[in-house]
Every structure is written in structure tokens, then in C-alpha cells.
């Protein structure tokens, strides 16, 4: 795929990632977020964080299974969007739910187990966002950078547990996220295993396409 096309696809992701935020802002300014706008903002930004975390984790499997090497170019933007919506999620909790009270925010963070998972997920995304530039990848070296960015797994698992823990009874949606996550992890386990036993699973390898040039 040509560099120009990749740039265009990145632009597509950039614009589409902002659509939910634009609609949230539009609805908010027209008082159309329902009876409980603050909850709606917190829930929706949290949901967007999870969706982008799933997309980030899906890049490698999609690339390898379908031979779509170019998708790798979208991973950074997915990850940064996850971090972006995660920050908005926390900020809406801090401002709308906790009324900008630092002490009550800290108290809630300490007192609520479900927030432990959420805040961990958000905090581990900080170093990932900071080291997301090309210069940082070079500075850290590919191997170390990849090891560090496995923290994305912690963020994704933490985020899904955080969501699951506060649902009262209808856990269907958190379970959907958990199922997606298991598939993505399952693929990684299988992939690692496959690489270690190439002889045994040569036939599987032969079915998946070799990496293509961009």
C-alpha cells in the first residue's frame, strides 16, 4: 500500500474517532443527553476507551491472520485514542461526579475496588502514550519498546474488569468485551505456541499468508 493511501486511512481513523466526541458535545449543548447527563458522559467515554483498547489489541491478529500488514500503521492512533477517551472518562468523573474535589476523588479511588482497576488501566497507558513517538521507539529500541507496550494488555484487562464490577445485574455487555478480549488473547497464545512448535504446525503456517510488503 502506498504511503499516500496509508496517510488517508489514518485520516479516516482520526476523523471517525472524533465523531462520538462531537456528538457527545453536540447533544450536551442541546441538553439531549437524557435525564442523567453526567452518568451518560462518564459511561460513554469509558465505553469508547474500551472499544479503542480492543481495536489496539486487534491490530496484530488482524495483520497476521488476514495478511493486512498496513493495519499496523493504525495501532498508534487506536492506542492514543484509548488514552484520550480514558482521560476524558476520568476528567468527567472528577468534574461532574466529584465536583472537582480532589480529596473526594482520592477517597473514592482508594475506597472502590472497581476504580482500582480503572485507574490502573489509565495509569499504565501514560507511559505508552509518552513512548508512542517514532523518536521514543528508536531511543528505547524495538525489543524494549515492545516489552513495555505489552502493558496495553494490562490496560485492556483492567478496563474490562472495571466495567464488569460496577454493573448491577445485567453483565451481558461487559461479557461481550471479555469475550472479544479472550479471542484476542487466545490468538496470541496460539501464535506463541505455534512459533515454538513450527514442525508440528507447519500445516497451519502454510495456510496463513506470509507477510506482505506494504
Amino acid at each position, binding site marked *: 500500500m502506498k504511503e499516500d493511501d496509508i496517510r488517508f486511512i489514518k485520516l479516516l481513523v482520526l476523523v471517525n474517532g472524533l465523531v462520538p466526541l462531537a456528538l457527545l458535545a453536540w447533544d450536551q449543548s442541546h441538553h439531549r443527553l437524557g435525564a*442523567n447527563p453526567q452518568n451518560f458522559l462518564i459511561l460513554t467515554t469509558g465505553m469508547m476507551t474500551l472499544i479503542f483498547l480492543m481495536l489496539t489489541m486487534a491490530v496484530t491478529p488482524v495483520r497476521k491472520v488476514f495478511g493486512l500488514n498496513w493495519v499496523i500503521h493504525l495501532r498508534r492512533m487506536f492506542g492514543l485514542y484509548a488514552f484520550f477517551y480514558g482521560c476524558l472518562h476520568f476528567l468527567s468523573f472528577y468534574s461532574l461526579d466529584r465536583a472537582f474535589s480532589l480529596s473526594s476523588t482520592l477517597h473514592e479511588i482508594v475506597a472502590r475496588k472497581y476504580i482500582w482497576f480503572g485507574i490502573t488501566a489509565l495509569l499504565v497507558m501514560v507511559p505508552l502514550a509518552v513512548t508512542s513517538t517514532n523518536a521514543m521507539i528508536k531511543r528505547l529500541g524495538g525489543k524494549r519498546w515492545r516489552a513495555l507496550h505489552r502493558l496495553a494488555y494490562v490496560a485492556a484487562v483492567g478496563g474490562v474488569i472495571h466495567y464488569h464490577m460496577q454493573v448491577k445485574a445485567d453483565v451481558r455487555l461487559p461479557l461481550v468485551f471479555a469475550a472479544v478480549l479472550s479471542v484476542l488473547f487466545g490468538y496470541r497464545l496460539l501464535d506463541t505456541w505455534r512459533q515454538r512448535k513450527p514442525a508440528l504446525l507447519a500445516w497451519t503456517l502454510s495456510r496463513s499468508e506470509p507477510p506482505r510488503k506494504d
Partner: protein
Amino acid sequence: MLKDENKILAREVTPPSVYFNRRNFIRAGILAASAVATGVVYRKLNPVGTNSGPSVQTAKIEGVQKPAATATNDNSGFTVNEPETPFEDITHYNNFYEFSTDKEEVATAAANFKTTGWTVSVEGLVNKPKVFALDDLLKIAPPEERIYRMRCVEAWSMVIPWVGFSFSKLLNVVEPLSSAKYVAFQTLLDPARMPGQRSNVLDWPYAEGLRMDEAMHPLTILASGIYGRALPPQDGAPIRMIIPWKYGFKGIKSIVKIKLLETQPRTTWSAYAPKEYGFYANVNPHVDHPRWSQATEQRIGEPGRRPTLMFNGYEAQVGHLYAGMDLRKNF
């Protein structure tokens, strides 16, 4: 010089400016279309953004007595000096799992719920068990307006002008036996009319219960309306319980059966998660839900949070019912 028929003449080549323009044009189109598609998906998942569901217009209830006329003194708790939550919010933000687990979907899911031919069976330890037709039940006492705080266990709250009468007036008609210590309530079980019952998210039918003295308390009402009109389906039509000092889930909706018992009945939420929801479920800012704080609440329509009051602000009226009880144990 070879003549090549397929050779494209220089003048036939699309000029780069036109070519790139066309490409940019197509790309702009793809970009716009994808943004619209994302927007449509977002709207599908968040219908609340476009509108707040169907507006309801139920029948006006005649002859409703206002709190000033019914309150025997200022201490009755029959009214509260706090702004009433708008009708649209009360009717579009509902916990009613029989229709949907999404509070903002209930109004739409319940819109076509019909209550014609509704009956309520009052049975168990009573002298005069009876199956009431709804109209007869509503004739037991004149309708009163009661403006109560409504505190949900999820830590949000409203102020709702109910229409109803004290539940004790119904009990007096059926004459409880002295052995009756508890009252058990049951919601309609009909998955065809209540689509939420097709999934087993809770153990249907929904069941609730009160201790006899709680049931007899004048604040405890059998409600049939809000804002002077009959209850819309999403708020528990045609008849429901309101116990204003308890968390909202105690206020069982769409009641078909009331049974007086000697022993404490099984109640839906405390059976579902006994460590999280107790039988009493009195509003108590000092006893947190295991997963979240109950110290403050979010009043619908207000920014920020306000402190939650002991017994939801009805301590003067009901505190004595629980004298000597460990409310941490009996949450």
C-alpha cells in the same frame, strides 16, 4: 519508428491536477460517508441522544387531595420542600428490568404495555382475602398527592409527586390476622407483555416484602399515579408500592399479588446478591454498598452531588421502627 496502437497519446493523459482532484474528491466522499456511518452507529447505540423516547399522556386522576389538606402536621413527611423532578425525567429514567436493564430504554420498551382487566389478589394471613379489580382497589381511599424523595440504590435520586393512599388502608379492609408479621408483594409474570422476563437476568417474578409495622406506616403508600395522572407503564402501572425511606428497588411495580405471612419473605434483589442488597434496604449514608458509596447522591437535574440523608430524610417519622437494631447488619 514503431507504431503502437495502444500507445496513449500525451494529450490523452489526464492532467495530474485533474487526476489528483478527482482522487481527493473521492477521498473526501469516503471520509464524509464513513463519518456519517460512525455517527449512525453511535446514534443506534445511544438513542437517548436523539430523543428521550415517547412522551406519555395518561388519564388524569380526579379529586386528588393536595398534601396541605392531608398532612396532619408539618412532621408528616407527606411533602418535601425541594424542587420536583421534571415529568420527562421521571418517565424516561427508570429501573424496570421487566422491560429493559437500560434505564433510558424502559419508556420505549414499556410503551405498549396494557393493564386492562388488572386484578390484585390479597391473600394469606387475613380475615377477608380478596381478588380486587383495579377500580375497586383504587376506591378504597381517596387519592392523595405525596411528594417524596426517591433514592435509588445506584446513588441517584429524584423528588416525585406521587398519587396514592396509605397502604394501611388496604390492610384494614382485608383485616390481617395477629399472626401476620410480614407482607410479600409480587409483580406480574408475563414474558409476552414484559419482554425483559424472557432473559433470566433476575429470578422472575419480581418479589418484595415489608415488615408489618413498615407496611402499616402512614408514609408507605400504594401509588397509582404521578403528577396527577395515572402511572405510565414505565413507572409501574397500574399500581405499585412507595416506601420513601427505603431504596427504590423496594418500591415494587405492577403488583398482582399481596400475601401476608408469618415469616420474612424472599425478595428478589437480596436473593440475587445477599451481600449487596438486604431485606430492609433502608436509605443509610453510613452503610456503603460493597462496591460504591451511599454517602452522597446525584439528584437528577442537579449538577454535582448532595449528601444522602439518614432514612432518606424521614428519620423523624420512621427512626423508631428500627430502634435498637444494628443497621449495619440489617442493611
